[in-house]
């Protein structure tokens, strides 16, 4: 996977900020995407388009708060293809995997900047910052979790394998 970075330095970017409860009247991804991140950055969607950004980098404890799965759904529908942060709240972490949105714990948060182009090789466990020409090792997910992500989420994974 290759893409441009949009970075938010804030720690504790919570699920109420990603998608406030006032918009939880639906699980329609497009509607959620329209309001995604708007309390933190009203120009979020425009910036993504302008910069062609698909990889979101955030501060520690990303996705803390409510268990609402609409948070990763909104980000994914906004065009985010991967989320990188030093740490994630555990429910958000699971939710991302379960909807097929790759997520990476990455301690060298300062090494990534808005507009950097980065390339991620999930099976090898390598993150390559093409803009700074630096390579980093990242944690490889256990195979069955990789399979869930590749199936575009747990429901599809379960349909294929188990149900």
């Amino acid at each position, binding site marked *: 996977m290759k893409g441009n970075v949009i970075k938010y330095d804030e720690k*504790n970017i919570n699920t*109420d900020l990603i998608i406030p409860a*006032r918009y939880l*009247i639906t699980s329609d991804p497009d509607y959620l995407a329209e309001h995604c991140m708007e309390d933190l950055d009203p120009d979020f969607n425009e910036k993504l388009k302008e910069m062609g950004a698909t990889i979101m980098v955030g501060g520690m404890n990303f996705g*803390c708060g409510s268990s*609402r799965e609409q948070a990763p759904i909104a980000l994914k529908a906004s065009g985010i293809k991967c989320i990188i942060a030093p740490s*994630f709240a555990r429910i958000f972490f699971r939710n991302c995997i*379960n909807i097929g949105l790759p997520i990476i714990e990455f301690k060298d948060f300062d090494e990534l900047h808005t507009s950097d182009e980065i390339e991620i090789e999930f099976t090898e466990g390598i993150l390559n910052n093409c803009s700074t020409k630096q390579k980093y090792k990242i944690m490889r997910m256990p195979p069955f979790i990789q399979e869930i992500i590749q199936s575009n989420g*747990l*429901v599809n994974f379960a349909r294929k394998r188990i149900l």
Partner: protein
Amino acid sequence: MSGQTIAEKILANHFLSGSDIKPDDIIIAKLDLVMSHIGTGKVVIDFRKIRPSKIRKVFDPNKIVVIFDHYNPAPSERWASVHDLIRNFVKKQGIKNFYDIKEGICHQVLPEKGHVRPGMLIVGGDSHTTTYGAFNAASCGLGNTDLFYSYVKGELWFRVPHTIRFRITGKLPPSVMSKDIIIKIAGDHTAEVATYKSIEFTGDTMENLSIASRMTMSNFALELGAKFAFGVPDQKVVDWVKERTTEPFELVKPDPDAIYEKTYEIDVSDLEPQISCPHTVDNVKPISEVAGTKINQAFLGSCTNGRLEDLEIAAKILEGKRIHNDVRMIVTPASQEIWIKAAKSGVSETLINAGAVITNPSCGACFGALGGMLAPSEKCISSSNRNFQGRMGSAAAEVYLGSPATVAASALKGEITDPRDL
């Protein structure tokens, strides 16, 4: 082999492929109970994707609890339709443990109705499912897709967590509550001190706390990132649970040689009331530093602090008095059982006479989609668990979190007020 923590013991007891586990292992475990609220709606929709339709069955209808608490009574046609969808599903699947709009908040009602027992492994479609740790159950929240999978399979993957321990000692000063302890921990150790981890709360302070006060700690522990948050496994828990169920159970205690990643020592003998200031739970100040901040709304309720002892301490503070003219006070009992008890004991009347609005049991104002919303620039003191920007209405409003005593004292004075000063 070294000893095991409570989390390790319960997960080992539920591990489907043996019992030898250690932190960081990823295991598949059998679930004792699956709880869901309004999120059940998404489960119903995912169920329709199962083909052929005749195999659309939950794993065990007796191990599922469905409860309405976030949007009670339905505030719009949209939510009425979601309720309708879920009611039909519940009937069709033969789920008997269904609690409709009157009962209250899941985390209060499930223990009250005897669904929660020591040693259980419970998942719920709500982040604050950690609350049942007060009853010595390993319980955690999930999103809707995990919930769907749990409904179908009755099992789920877990990463075995490391355990940290908070040893809390000393006698709590008057008008200082367990909420003040847990907010203090958030302030001192940040909102991610327990991310992915299991917490064990120990020490003489914990032993002396009521079950309700322990529930507050296990509930708010989610705000520290916790996966599980166990209270003290003692006779108080046994007595409480035995009053609610005849099902057998055994307390799960940690081994003396269990390995803890870290132990934090906290002495609460001189603790003053604590406030989580906007907009993160770990932006904590002692009340002396924020006292005098004018407020527009005071909210007493939620799965953190909407229990009888919380209403009682507020009533004690407000007895025979009127809340400040510029403040609206909203009181939302956490369950119908609590509501009835508060009505019988005169607590409700005291609060109403003081000028509070009492609503039906529900998640209420806490999550900003049912009632008690804030206008831009308004400030609210709340006994709930989140003060995130936009949480209770306008993104330009501010929410301060404190104990029920602090909420009542502040409602009385119209500004954030130390309950010890009254």
